[in-house]
């Protein structure tokens, strides 16, 4: 159609130059660190890197060893138990607390501040406090025994079978505030008229929550799940501070396995293989979410 040469826009790479300059840190971060770093790690997970990275390929040997290592299997099992419990409990508790706070109560700000404040603390602090509270000699167990119930046993941090629940208690203490906050924002975002309509129709409150409000809060739930799930995979500081992976290796988690393999056992290849597995598990959670969130948004233009 076009006949005149200046009909077409000229090629101008320097147009919008400032925006491009401003984006250099982002471009470097995404391409070099996120994409490049990930690619590098995955590549080296197929090598026999020991203390130093070396391009000596050994195929899937690191992965075979990984899945043949009990410590990794324990770490995965722990992550699984911890993950499921953390998701379920933080969602349920977070939602119930948000629903309670949403009853037009007095002192809402005070209650909310109290429930959310642990979120401001570091995992190290959280881990150490709960290590102390769960100390069998002086903590909860000791106190109950002193009250006369001498056979009372509650020492999750020193019992390999339940140590992961000891960590869960601390994690929930720290993390439910966030979920509560998200849920509260979600509840506030729901049209007041929905409640009026439900009241006019005579639907009991719990039914309104379960059948009307919760389905409407789907995006909030999705966000909360994604946030918690990505946090679960990363859990590291808390375990280090609370149990150092103990007793024995009973509270190992993948993030710690990776760190120990890379730096303590001087087996980088093994660490890279383990972190690649972590990446894979995150991808399983994130990709469907990203597809749903961003893919849909794009289609709407």
């Amino acid at each position: 159609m076009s006949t005149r040469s200046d009909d077409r826009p000229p090629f101008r790479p320097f147009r919008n130059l400032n925006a491009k300059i401003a984006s250099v840190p982002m471009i470097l971060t995404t391409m070099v660190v996120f994409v490049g770093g990930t690619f590098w790690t995955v590549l080296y997970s197929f090598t026999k890197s020991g203390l130093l990275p070396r391009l000596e390929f050994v195929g899937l040997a690191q992965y075979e060893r990984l899945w043949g290592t009990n410590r990794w299997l324990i770490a995965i099992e722990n992550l699984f138990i911890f993950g499921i419990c953390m998701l379920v409990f933080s969602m349920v508790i977070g939602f119930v607390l948000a629903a309670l706070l949403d009853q037009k109560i007095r002192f809402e700000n005070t209650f909310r501040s109290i429930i959310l404040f642990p979120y401001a603390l570091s995992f190290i602090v959280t881990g150490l406090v709960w290590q102390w509270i769960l100390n069998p000699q002086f903590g909860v167990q000791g106190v109950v025994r002193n009250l006369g119930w001498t056979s009372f046993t509650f020492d999750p941090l020193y019992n390999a079978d339940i140590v992961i629940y000891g960590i869960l208690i601390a994690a929930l203490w720290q993390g439910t505030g966030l979920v509560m906050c998200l849920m509260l924002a979600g509840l506030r975002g729901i049209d007041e008229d929905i409640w009026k309509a439900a009241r006019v129709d005579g639907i009991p409150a719990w039914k309104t929550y379960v059948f009307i409000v919760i389905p409407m809060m789907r995006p909030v739930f999705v966000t909360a799940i994604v946030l918690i799930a990505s946090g679960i995979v990363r859990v590291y500081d808390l375990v280090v501070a609370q149990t150092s992976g103990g007793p024995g290796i009973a509270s190992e988690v993948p993030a710690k396995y990776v760190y120990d393999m890379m730096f303590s056992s001087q087996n980088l290849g093994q660490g890279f293989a383990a972190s690649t597995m972590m990446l894979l598990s995150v991808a399983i959670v994130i990709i469907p979410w990203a597809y749903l969130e961003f893919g849909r948004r794009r289609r709407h233009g």
Partner: protein
Amino acid sequence: MRHAMLAATLAASVAIPATLANATDLEVTHWWTSGGEAAAVAELAKAFDATGHKWIDGAIAGGGNTARPVMISRITGGDPMGATQFNHGRQTEELIEAGLMRDLTDIAEAEGWKDIVRPSSLLDSCTVDGRIYCAPINIHSWEWLWLSNKAFEDAGVEVPTNWDEFVAAAPKLEEAGKIPLAMGGQPWQSGGAFRVMLSSLAGPDVYKKVYGDKDTDAAAGPEIARVFEAADNARKMSAGSNVQDWNQATNLVITGQAGGQIMGDWAQGEFQVAGQTAGEDYTCLPGLGVNAVMSTGGDAFYFPVLQDEEQKKAQGELAALLLKPETQLAFNLKKGSVPVRGDVDLEAANDCMKKGLDILAEGRTIPSGEQLMSQDSLNQINDLVVEFFNTPSMTAEDAHKRFVDIVASAD
């Protein structure tokens, strides 16, 4: 680094008086943070500061497994310290191969380390391709059983003289409300205890075959099966001990809450800090009272390659200083370990230390685990044993089988 060099050139250009220019800060990293250990390091720092330089202490808490990664990543990350502690052995192999560690051969020759270091295997562990890369500082032996005399008194039994008696006394201790065997929760502790049981109960030859030659037949043999039975006993005896750190476990023995602990000679430092006397307050049984052999592992200082000339000089001075008789004596007395040179006068040594010295003098030594096996494989064994100790449902046979697998793939 660049800043250091810049500072150095600047310093040179403004011609600071020579005495000042000579005083160099040297950062030394190590993981000696318990009471006895810290006291021993203080001796080294004092000696080094006396030369006019300054010891910058870079203690990293949490034991070797926490500290080594920091050290290694700093060395490989291009931010090396002046000197650093490692267990000599295979932990540094790759660093040396990568040319990141300083060759100390000239200093070693000038100081005549070849003639004074005893046993000579210590220096061998520092040697790669005929060059010497580290300065051994002490000999640490793992093979000790520390017993609390008070605990046995309270239980009304004789202080045992060997492992079997100890096992036999366990029920009495439990009746008296004691934990028979104190054991910290970290993997290296139970892994080490297991190795001690192996070399003591199965004998040094089997130990060398398994850890040194990675001989799966030996690893699968009946001797090792017996070791796992002993480990099973140890597991039962340590069931009540819920501490993490080794010195907390030692503290249980010191206070008489626990009967005994299998731990290296560094535990002795803790007894000393607590003001206890060997023979009176506590008893030590080398080789669990069965096979009195001692491993000759220990700590050594490595010196990463630096660019700054002043710092290089300071490195050299520190290396030489570490093996001087006075330093050796002062350090090892506090640390509870054995000096690396035979000519040090150990008048001040206590009962237990003398026992160790005698064994060394008789040459009843074995290489340490770190000298024989890579850290990776050792960690795998540690993980297995600590799992075994913390999982009552795991049978000795299962653990044995998995042990053989690890040995088969070890390097």
